[in-house]
């Protein structure tokens, strides 16, 4: 049958396909524009000096963001120390133990925590750590990023553990292995790749946070030597340079933004590609 009505329906179908395709392209357009601009403005300033030198005083050309790059690394390390154990163990609880009702509430709580604006985390840790310690510090920065990671890691760990077939657990228990051993040495080991993926994604997510670091890590023009001292961080430095009136600092801000974005993008793309169709069902 090829009536006019059929043709109209087919036309509608094609129009919608075109329209939604256009929408999809519009959605990724900003990413392309941003990346293009970062490369155009920042690539020129990404040189050896950028990675190895400290910031120079205002008005003097040159200098780099070496301390900010290392600082971000240190903060991520500290954050992982807090976020990974708490998050992973919590995720284990949600998947292996607990009652249905309680777990529902914990999951809801974790999801709500994921939605708390990062600036509020910063305010809380300022009141909790910076004020009693009478100083901004790498600790405070690490603590706030770590706290932000906990709900993220908890949920991803739980989801990955749930995908491990029950047969593994039952077989281990049937052999007389203690429950906790079953979980740690068999279930977690099986899902390890997925758990690490979740951790890396959480790290990539907090690596770009600026707002909470404004009130905790504070920033540092030099190397950080003690964890109780302020510390530089890449997104923080990019922000400070971006709102400055010096052309040279703007160029460095773009370079820093490019490095930061590449770092985050490589982690994200990398883990997704490596674990496709294995344990994580997302594409």
């Amino acid at each position, binding site marked *: 049958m090829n009536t006019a009505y059929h043709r109209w329906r087919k036309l509608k179908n094609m129009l919608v396909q075109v329209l939604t395709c256009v929408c999809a392209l519009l959605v990724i357009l900003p990413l392309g524009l941003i990346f293009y601009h970062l490369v155009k403005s920042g690539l020129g300033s990404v040189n050896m000096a950028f990675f190895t030198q400290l910031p120079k*005083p205002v*008005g003097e050309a040159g200098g780099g963001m070496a301390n900010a790059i*290392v600082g971000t690394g240190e903060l991520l390390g500290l954050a992982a120390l807090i976020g990974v154990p708490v998050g992973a163990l919590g995720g284990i609880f949600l998947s292996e133990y607990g009652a249905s009702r309680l777990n529902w509430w914990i999951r809801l709580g974790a999801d709500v925590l994921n939605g708390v604006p990062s600036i509020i985390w910063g305010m809380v840790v300022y009141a909790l750590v910076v004020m009693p310690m009478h*100083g901004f510090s790498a600790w405070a920065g690490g603590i706030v990023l770590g706290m932000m990671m906990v709900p993220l890691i908890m949920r991803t760990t739980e989801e990955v553990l749930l995908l491990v077939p029950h047969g593994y657990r039952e077989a281990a228990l049937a052999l007389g292995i203690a429950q906790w051993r079953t979980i740690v040495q068999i279930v977690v080991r099986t899902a390890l790749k997925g758990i690490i993926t979740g951790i890396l994604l959480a790290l990539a997510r907090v690596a770009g946070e600026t707002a909470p670091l404004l009130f905790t890590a*504070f920033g*540092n023009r030099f190397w950080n030597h003690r964890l109780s001292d302020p510390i530089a961080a890449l997104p923080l430095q990019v922000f400070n340079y971006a709102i400055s*009136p*010096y052309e040279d600092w703007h160029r460095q801000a773009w370079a820093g933004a490019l490095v930061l974005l590449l770092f985050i993008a490589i982690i994200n793309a990398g883990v997704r590609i490596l674990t496709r169709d294995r344990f994580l069902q997302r594409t």
Partner: protein
Amino acid sequence: MNRALSLIVGAVLTLSSASRSSAQMLINGAGATFPYPIYSKWFDEYARVDPSVRFNYQSIGSGGGQKQILAQTVDFGASDGPMTDANLAKAPGKILHIPTVAGAVVITYNLPGNLKLTLDGPTVADIFLGKITRWDDKRIAALNPQMILPNSDLVVVHRSDGSGTSYIFTDYLCSVSKEWESQVGRNTSVKWPSGLGAKGNEGVAGQVKQLHGTVGYVELAYAHQNDLPYANMKNAAGHPIEASLDSVTEAMATAKIPDDFRFSMVNAPGGKAYPIAGATWLLVYEHQKDPAKGKKLVEFLNWALTTGEGMAPALDYVPLPDDLKRRVIDRIKTITY
């Protein structure tokens, strides 16, 4: 997971020790954006003079400097506006105001053609009160008879953060406009009657540079650094004066400086004095809790008030006159640790 964890811990420790040198002290300060260029020069130079200490200064605004020194989260603060009595009373110890350099606050704008405007106090006050909204307003034209002013909207840009630059500027506006004094007042952070807010001297300079028809206020150093035009201001004696090291020195020479060094030098009476000028201070506790840090801080202050002052003119800052310098150095001697 154990391996991953130990790898992470190991990486953190390695990274931390890679950048570690022997027992280097870090002294933290925060505050004014105005003196940031000269302070960052000083701290960079001083790191060569005394490699055992580093001064980490973050320019978060004068309000921030005052707040953080009160909360004792930094070792010293910096502010372009003196702290109020109320705030000083809240401090856990006595805070000293150490003046370092002085500078000018200039009115910058973004207009076509290389116009060098002349403005006076009441006109500027009315602009910032939102009463003058077009560039070809007759009051601006009256002060600039030879110029062709564009027929466009006038957009005010002010500071969105707590700023000593704002303090100096609002202090000046209070002295030239009763309406401003009663309606808005003087402070590091005020309720601006109109305009856009931008963060830091940097932000205002950037905003003015980007948007046509804007008028804002920044420190002279920032205007020079950014090639921004700025207006000549009519001073108390009625002469239009360009902001410069000389005109600010003249203003400081004629200002009255009380014992605690909290002074205002706006609208100074001198014939060649630039009317919107102010000093900037370092805020330190008279009694330093940490003896090692206190010693290094005092050494730095002495260096700054002697050698450091010599670097000021090259960066568009005005060093303190000699008699004031002597008084300040005497005051530094009273810091205990």
